[in-house]
């Protein structure tokens, strides 16, 4: 009697466990399969198009032939402008939010609210805004500068929020410890808090750059389509993502080089990711925070 009573729930939960077990394996398997399929597809179709010539040559025949050298250069320049503008702005905004204002202060609530709104704005809207402000109103025209500045506006929310979290993640013990040594607030920030939040700041940078590298819509109306080698920041420049869009949507027979460009973009993202991961690893090991 007692055995029968005890058995049923055990059996039922046994089936339940099996189901949960199956699902916890199935779900990641599906995710992994989708990822591998995507990567595999890109690598298989793209690898044939990528050689040294592809990297150093200029696009020919609207990109059907030739390489992507000016595209890579333009991509780097746009990212450079974006990072150079967005990182200092974000860092100081994050410092303000984390160190100089309490959560309840109206100013910080307004900033937080606007960041949330900015984060929800579709990138095409940033594109149109960037076109109106930088290209037209400020007279920069379709240029790498306009594109980079537009991207900077776009990545600000994500940068500020991750950087704010990184600064807040520095334990209060260290703040008090440094203050107890007679360090002023600015010394505490520069010598203790910022050095200790570098890993988190790098993660923010990584997210921002990743977002910027992948961006297309915000750049169509700002940095433009021109696939010549840029000679200054005021030249129009075509980034990798726009090149891919153009080849696959507008150029018949551009598929092969589109895939090759996707592969280059993928490798680029991978390299940047690994670079920052390595930096992270070494900065953590130096501080003794890793086990």
């Amino acid at each position: 009697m007692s055995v029968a009573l005890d058995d049923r729930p055990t059996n039922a939960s046994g089936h339940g466990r099996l189901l949960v077990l199956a699902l916890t394996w199935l779900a990641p398997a599906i995710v992994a399969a989708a990822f591998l399929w995507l990567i595999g597809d890109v690598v298989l179709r793209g690898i044939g198009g990528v050689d040294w010539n592809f990297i150093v040559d200029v696009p020919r025949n609207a990109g059907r032939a030739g390489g992507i050298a000016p595209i890579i250069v333009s991509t780097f320049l746009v990212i450079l402008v974006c990072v150079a503008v967005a990182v200092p702005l974000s860092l100081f905004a994050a410092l303000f939010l984390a160190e100089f204002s309490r959560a309840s202060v109206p100013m910080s609530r307004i900033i937080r609210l606007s960041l949330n709104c900015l984060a929800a704005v579709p990138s095409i809207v940033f594109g149109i805004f960037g076109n109106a402000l930088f290209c037209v109103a400020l007279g920069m025209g379709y240029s790498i500068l306009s594109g980079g500045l537009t991207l900077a506006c776009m990545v600000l929310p994500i940068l500020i929020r991750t950087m704010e979290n990184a600064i807040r993640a520095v334990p209060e013990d260290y703040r008090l410890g440094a203050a107890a040594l007679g360090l002023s607030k600015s010394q505490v920030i520069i010598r203790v808090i910022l050095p200790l939040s570098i890993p988190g700041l790098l993660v923010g940078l990584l997210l921002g750059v990743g977002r910027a590298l992948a961006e297309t819509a915000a750049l169509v109306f700002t940095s433009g389509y021109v696939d010549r080698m840029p000679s200054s920041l005021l030249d129009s420049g075509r980034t990798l993502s726009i090149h891919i869009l153009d080849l696959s949507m507008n150029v018949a027979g551009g598929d092969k080089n589109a895939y090759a460009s996707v592969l280059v973009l993928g490798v680029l993202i991978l390299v940047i990711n690994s670079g920052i991961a390595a930096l992270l690893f070494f900065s953590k090991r130096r501080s003794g925070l890793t086990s």
Partner: protein
Amino acid sequence: MAPLDVTSDSIFWRVNDLTVSYGKALALSSVSIDIRKTGVTAIIGPSGCGKSSFLCCLNRLSEMIPGCCVSGRIEIQRENILATRFDSTSLRRRVGLIFQKPNPFPMSIRRNLELPLREHGMRDSREVDSTITRCLTEVGLWSEVKDRLDAPALSLSGGQQQRLCIARALVLKPDALLMDEPCSALDPVSTAVVESLIQSLSKNYTIVMVTHNLRQARRLGSDVAFFWMRDGAGMLIEAGSSDQIFNSPRHELTQRYVLGQVA
């Protein structure tokens, strides 16, 4: 409260009517006490009686705590350190603070000691190095770490970390050290090492130490102050020499507390 029976020259802190509150909650109500130069003043009492709040006022770290409001007077050499025009950073150079949980910065051992020195304007590298050597020797850590000054401070044991924190406070040549239960996070062996260190430091520094451990207070304290909590707010019941507090307390509550009859 009856002041300690000493002349004013031998007083380091003269605390008068000190009241601390956090928002609307009163944490410490009207504490008056004189703290003698050199020696260890042990502060005992149950949890929540405002011992740590009191300690934080002595170097004005209280102003870093959101919502913390301090009133009253604390004098060092007849100057009120609670006055807003009094420079709290220079005060903290003279009065080091050791936290309950060792908190060396997650940097190298050398950098932990170098940072306060450099930030306070010591430029000469040889002077920095000799100060580091002197302070590590003073806390008995030199022989243990001299070959790995560039190793992360967090790779040290808990007791070593706490001694490193004491060395970090000593590099600034303070007059006084505040210690907030400096041994409560340490094992018995490390506790013994840190205790004997405190004892030897007490010859040259004014030390105020919060402790939960009555035996530690008896072992180390030259003076003892007993805090208690009434209606949610901490207050000073009595202060005096260690011998007087433990053997012939004036207050019945003190007697019962040191005998372990109330907690």
